[in-house]
């Protein structure tokens, strides 16, 4: 299992494989449609959704525009509350800091709360190399870890697995990691959850070190926030003696009060609930309650490079709700693995190439993994204009231009004649050969006007390459969109 997905084929090839896997496609379609419908209902319950969305956008934009000031303020608040702040410029440095912190405790195992930041940096692998076992404790992450697999969705990482596969993984692998699966385990979700409960409980009760990410950090107070459902987060955040949180620098909000906006928009956008079952908030350390030592590792790893891009920086507003995945016609067919990143779907298509640069084939192809239909923008609770950023990144790949890598300005060459362009072209053709492409309508036309016909093959050429079509789900994107307006349909 690799957190960084090194050596992934470019999007179209990976997507092609996914499209030809009917089980995967069925699971994905069921999942995205179910969550989408529920979400629309949860959003419709709050009459001020538009105002909350605007406030969320402005809070995040304001924070990003003054990020240096807020980072310093956060460091002061966390330190004053008894925490220790570390700064990590890249994945390697973050892994080194965490490894040393764990080593200093003398422990050889850690329990982990689901965290995309630690997946992004490949922390589990780095710890393993240092002889430290990291146990994922979110049920879906446990399934992924035991299955030596990769997550395929932000919110439901094991959505590509069905219950029979999960049972087989538990029966086969649990014993090697700790408490074995109970005799006669069936594939009922309740029994599988119980098996996970027993397996993980012995780890929680003896763990001395917990590792987490965070959904939000409050500059004003130094408070960190983790939003979850199962209680594994609470276990990892409160039972161990040492807590280490690895958090991207973009996760700051300025004030305590700002949380009122995101605690309303995040649960509804992500799990379609009024509120998720558990939210934990902690400020440094508390005498007699919870970990005695708290370390916060602030992670850059490409975020400042993303910040330097005036169009692309809005991707840093993302609160990882996964709503954009669930409405995306391309994600629905291609699946999360095709994106070759811990950030799949529309947000992954703009975030990964910015965090990592577009030097690799997969990263150069990601901005083309979209039909530009705009559904992702419509649902995004912080109003990230994903299509705008996609077009911007396509232009940069095709025409070259200035970008920032590791803090330095670089001038990228146009991709013409290069592998990246070929990958991009194939991706474009792939996206356009799917039902989303031609039904994408006005938004597509207006968005792509600037670079037609230089970087995209014309629709005719796209259609000529549609050998995948017979295996694509029946409903064309255009019809789906008309029927549901991007998931706003609540009649189903």
């Amino acid at each position, binding site marked *: 299992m690799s957190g960084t997905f090194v050596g992934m084929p470019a999007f179209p090839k990976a997507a092609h494989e996914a499209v030809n896997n009917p089980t995967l496609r069925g699971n994905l379609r069921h999942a995205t449609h179910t969550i989408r419908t529920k979400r629309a209902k949860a959003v419709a319950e709050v*009459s001020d959704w538009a105002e909350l969305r605007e*406030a969320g956008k402005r809070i995040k934009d304001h924070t990003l525009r003054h990020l240096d000031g807020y980072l310093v303020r956060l460091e002061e608040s966390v330190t004053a509350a008894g925490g220790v702040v570390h700064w990590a410029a890249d994945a390697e440095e973050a892994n080194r800091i965490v490894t040393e912190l764990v080593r200093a405790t003398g422990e050889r195992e850690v329990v982990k709360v689901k965290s995309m930041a630690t997946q992004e940096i490949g922390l589990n692998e780095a710890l393993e190399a240092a002889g430290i076992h990291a146990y994922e404790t979110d049920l879906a992450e446990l399934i992924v870890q035991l299955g030596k697999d990769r997550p395929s969705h932000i919110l439901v990482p094991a959505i590509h697995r069905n219950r029979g596969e999960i049972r087989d993984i538990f029966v086969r692998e649990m014993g090697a990691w700790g408490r074995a699966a109970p005799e006669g385990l069936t594939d009922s979700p309740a029994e599988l*959850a119980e098996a996970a409960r027993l397996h993980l409980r012995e780890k929680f009760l003896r763990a001395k070190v917990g590792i987490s990410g965070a959904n939000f950090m409050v500059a004003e107070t130094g408070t960190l926030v983790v939003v979850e459902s199962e209680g594994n987060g609470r276990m990892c955040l409160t039972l161990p003696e040492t807590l280490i949180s690895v958090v991207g620098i973009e996760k700051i909000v300025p004030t305590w009060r700002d949380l009122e906006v995101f605690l309303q928009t995040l649960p509804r956008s992500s799990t379609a609930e009024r*509120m998720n079952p558990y939210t934990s908030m902690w400020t440094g350390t508390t005498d007699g*309650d919870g970990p005695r030592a708290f370390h916060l590792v602030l992670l850059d790893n490409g975020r400042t490079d993303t910040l*330097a891009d005036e169009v692309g920086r809005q991707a840093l507003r993302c609160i990882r709700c996964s709503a954009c995945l669930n409405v995306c016609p391309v994600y629905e067919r291609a699946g999360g693995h095709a994106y070759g990143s811990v950030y799949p779907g529309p947000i992954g298509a703009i975030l990964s190439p910015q965090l990592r640069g577009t030097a690799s084939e997969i990263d150069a192809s990601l901005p083309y993994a979209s039909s530009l239909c705009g559904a992702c923008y419509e649902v995004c609770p912080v109003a990230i204009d994903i299509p705008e950023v996609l077009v911007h990144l396509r232009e940069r790949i095709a025409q070259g231009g200035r970008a920032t890598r590791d803090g330095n300005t670089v001038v990228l060459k146009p991709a013409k004649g290069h592998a990246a362009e070929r990958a991009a072209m194939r991706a474009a053709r792939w996206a356009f050969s799917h039902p989303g492409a031609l039904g994408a309508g006005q938004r597509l036309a207006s968005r792509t006007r600037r670079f037609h016909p230089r970087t995209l093959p014309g629709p005719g050429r796209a259609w000529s390459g549609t050998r995948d079509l017979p295996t694509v789900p029946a409903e064309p994107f255009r019809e789906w969109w008309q029927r549901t307006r991007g998931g706003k349909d609540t009649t189903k």
Partner: protein
Amino acid sequence: MSSRDLILGRVRRALADVPRDGTPPVPEQSGRDLRYEQAVDRSYLREHGARSLAETVDLLAENLADYRAVVHRATEEELPYVVMRLLAERGPQYVLVPPGLPPEWMSAADPTRVHDRAVSTPGELDKVTSVVTGCALAIAETGTIVLDGGPDQGRRRITLIPDHHICVVRVPGQVVASVPQAMERLDPTRPLTWISGPSATSDIELDRVEGVHGPRTLEVVLVGEV
């Protein structure tokens, strides 16, 4: 150069296009920074809909139940008997109570008490079958109870390890309508746990299963009258 200076330097260079008017508007705990207040439009609602106090409490009960918490209502006098009944229904008990729980709440029940001592390990707490606590407040619109580690709630771990949590909410005093109203009343320097229904997961084919790691049963007693 330290990574701190490196990252802060990169941030400043990345924001070269952003006009800087002197110091960044960093809010202080004492008093608000006006520029920040102006940067964020807070025209969203403080409460969704107009409700009487009684209606707000009803909404809380409804939303708690919708997320599979078991809701009971009682007067002050009835409360000890309700607690007794809820504990007795689960058979022989090891019950954990935080140090500052009002003694009258437990005056009718006679379970084997377990105390959360500084030296007790999580493994010892694993023997506990039920825990009884108060709360800091409850949010009607979302069906959420919030614990802040106060004397009638205890440390975070005691409401986490036992499988059965009985939480007493005083109405109407501890009930707020909305998340914004809750934020105003909570103290960020305390560790906070927001609970909306029992532990749950939908990770296996999106089938909801209650109780993975946290308590599988959450019973909320709304005590008092409106």
